């Protein structure tokens, strides 16, 4: 009775120990090499590139069309009132006007809805002055004063846009810094993604393209000794320890004992030719990522196919 109790508790203890030692939540997370992953993003979320000039023109044209349509709907009375108000006021100096419009423009950039209204008004003054205004000399003066200002404003609008969106020299450094930060962030993000994806990958193999690249490189470097007896076992396995750049740290012939066996003199020749091949080929064309995966590599050189056995 006691004996069976001990046995049972022993087994239980064993299972508990097994789970403690092997379950992943206790052991350290496995350092999985990163994978190259592709993430689909909206370009607008990541780029600072402004509109192309052609596109900008088209957009402006569209805007003008919209303005024209809206201008038609604007009440003439409202226009008159505004003009009257302007006329009643003291004639503003161009500088003041400029400042005022500037201010409005700045606001309009911040709040597109308001911008629409104000620009509409200015356009209206410029392009379609009412007959009443024309008759009024004062108003003419006013408009003559306003016109250049509007032009200035227009120019300023473009320059403001450019400054803001394209050439603000004060903000270049900030933009660069920001872009660097963004880049770093995206990189981090990518790494995270790839690492999580990498866990699902088969770590025991290179991808077909990686393997093909490596094979093609070594094919060119391996001068197969022509005198080998092709009815013998012509397989030599070489274990490599590699640096991340593909250069060799260490090479090891796995069947080293065979080299000194009687009647296996050809194996030495074969093994040496394989070693020469890897020496000649280095740095090897290894994948750019996943060093942990391929830092130890085994190459199986088999000359049978070449020698027509």
């Amino acid at each position, binding site marked *: 009775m006691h004996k069976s109790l001990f046995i049972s508790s*022993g087994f239980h203890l064993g299972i508990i120990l097994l789970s403690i030692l092997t379950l992943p939540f206790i052991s350290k997370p496995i350092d999985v090499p990163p994978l190259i992953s592709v993430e689909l993003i909206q370009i607008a979320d990541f780029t600072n590139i402004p509109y192309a000039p052609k596109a900008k023109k088209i957009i402006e044209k569209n805007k003008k069309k919209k303005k024209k349509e809206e201008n038609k709907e604007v009440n003439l009375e409202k226009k008159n009132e505004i003009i009257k108000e302007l006329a009643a006021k003291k004639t503003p100096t161009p500088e003041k006007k400029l400042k005022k419009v500037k201010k409005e423009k700045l606001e309009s950039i911040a709040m597109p809805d308001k911008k629409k209204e104000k620009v509409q008004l200015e356009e209206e003054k410029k392009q379609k002055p009412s007959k009443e205004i024309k008759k009024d000399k004062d108003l003419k003066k006013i408009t003559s004063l306003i016109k250049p200002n509007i032009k200035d404003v227009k120019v300023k609008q473009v320059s403001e846009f450019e400054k803001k969106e394209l050439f603000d020299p004060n903000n270049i450094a900030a933009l660069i810094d920001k872009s660097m930060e963004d880049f770093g962030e995206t990189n981090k993000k990518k790494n995270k993604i790839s690492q999580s994806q990498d866990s699902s990958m088969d770590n025991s193999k290179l991808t077909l393209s990686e393997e093909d690249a490596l094979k093609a490189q070594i094919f060119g470097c391996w001068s197969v000794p022509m005198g080998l007896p092709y009815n013998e076992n012509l397989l030599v396995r070489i274990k490599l320890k590699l640096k991340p750049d593909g250069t060799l740290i260490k090479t090891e012939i796995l069947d080293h004992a065979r080299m000194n066996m009687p009647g296996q003199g050809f194996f030495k020749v074969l093994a040496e030719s394989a070693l020469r091949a890897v020496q000649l080929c280095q740095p090897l064309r290894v994948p750019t990522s996943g060093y942990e995966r391929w830092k*130890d590599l*085994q190459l199986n050189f088999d000359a049978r196919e070449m020698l027509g056995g």
Partner: protein
Amino acid sequence: MDKLKLLTIICLLFLLKTTNSYSLIEVDITRGNLNPLPVAVSPLFQDKKSKIEFQRELNLDDIGSEISKVVENNLKQSGLFNPLSKDAFLQKPDIAHLKPRFEDWALIKAQALITGKVSIDNGKLKVEFRLWDVLAGREMLALAFTTVPNNWRRVGHIITDKVYERLTGEKGYFDTRIIYVSEEGLKTQRVKKLAIMDQDGFNTKYLTLGNELVLTPRFNPTNQMVTYLSYFRNLPRVYLLDIETGIQEVVGDFPGMTFAPRFSPDGKKIIMSFAKDGKSDIYIMDLENRIVEQITNHPSIDTSPSYSPDGKYITFNSDRSGYQQIYVMKSDGSNVKRISFGNGLYGTPVWSPRGDLIAFTKLHKGKFFIGVMRTDGKGERLLTENFYQEAPSWSPNGRVLIFYRETKTNEKGEGFSAKLWSIDLTGYNERLVETQTDASDPSWSSLLSN
């Protein structure tokens, strides 16, 4: 005891835990290139004293350089090596021989480096050489020889053999000789003499005077004996000739026509064919007791017999199927099997010294081919094609074939020539073997230094 078990289990669990989560990635390399291996052959260094003595003894300014040229030429002719131009060498021969700067040799793309030193000691030529693996930065081979100064070319051949063997895994074939029939004069009045030369075409010597017609000289695979056929008073005789001593003896007079004598692998027998009563059969003669044994007995023409290297089988050609084809049988004449089934006529089969292939001449659609097939007749490969060529003979390592090729004559009977050619098993490295005269019926010796 239970505690011990528990402890063992815990230790095992720890081991399991600490095992790397990455299994070793394996990549199979099943292809390589057949480009010649770039080799730097540094001139062999000689000191001033030796230089003066060599000049007096051999009338050579720089024997070290001459030996390295022999090595270089051999390696190049093999088709497996690409000796690099000496102009590109950055290190002097004396320093290179002591401690090569591998970076300098790697810079000129050399993968192997041969350095050496030559000196004269008590009237003897002393040569030491080293083979270096440039990429691994280590010595692969180091040897020294002492010989008479006149043997300096042989030293070059021996060095090449050692280098070849170390780098390719098979024995070399450079310290060898080729015996052939030297031909001079018009096609209808050819003067044929036995001639012998080094495999690179140097040191040609004539063994007969040309008074009698000589045919089919063949080397003994074990020594420097030669058997050949010569006509004495219009009767064919089989002769044995010792190259070293120059002693010649008649093996015997045989009835009717005798063809193609060839040694057995142990050199103790001669296998040949006799023509008698309109048929030709294969016979073996024991050289010790001169007893002749008939091997085939068929109302057809069986000729050109050749032993397998283990002496257990014989290949020959026969027209017993209606057309000349290649057959293989046991050395006692039993179990005859036809192995060639391709279109055309097959002849002059020669078993490779490696035992894996049989070389042959094939006549098909008016053209002659030299080819090889496996001993079961499968895997036929035609290596070279020409107007007229035949009599392939293997190099002692079974890598290269030497044969002769004749050119067409014009309407006036001019323009005829017969030259020796060699080709390796890849079929790509075909080369003319330089001879002083026209040449035919070559036979390659075994390695002299064995």
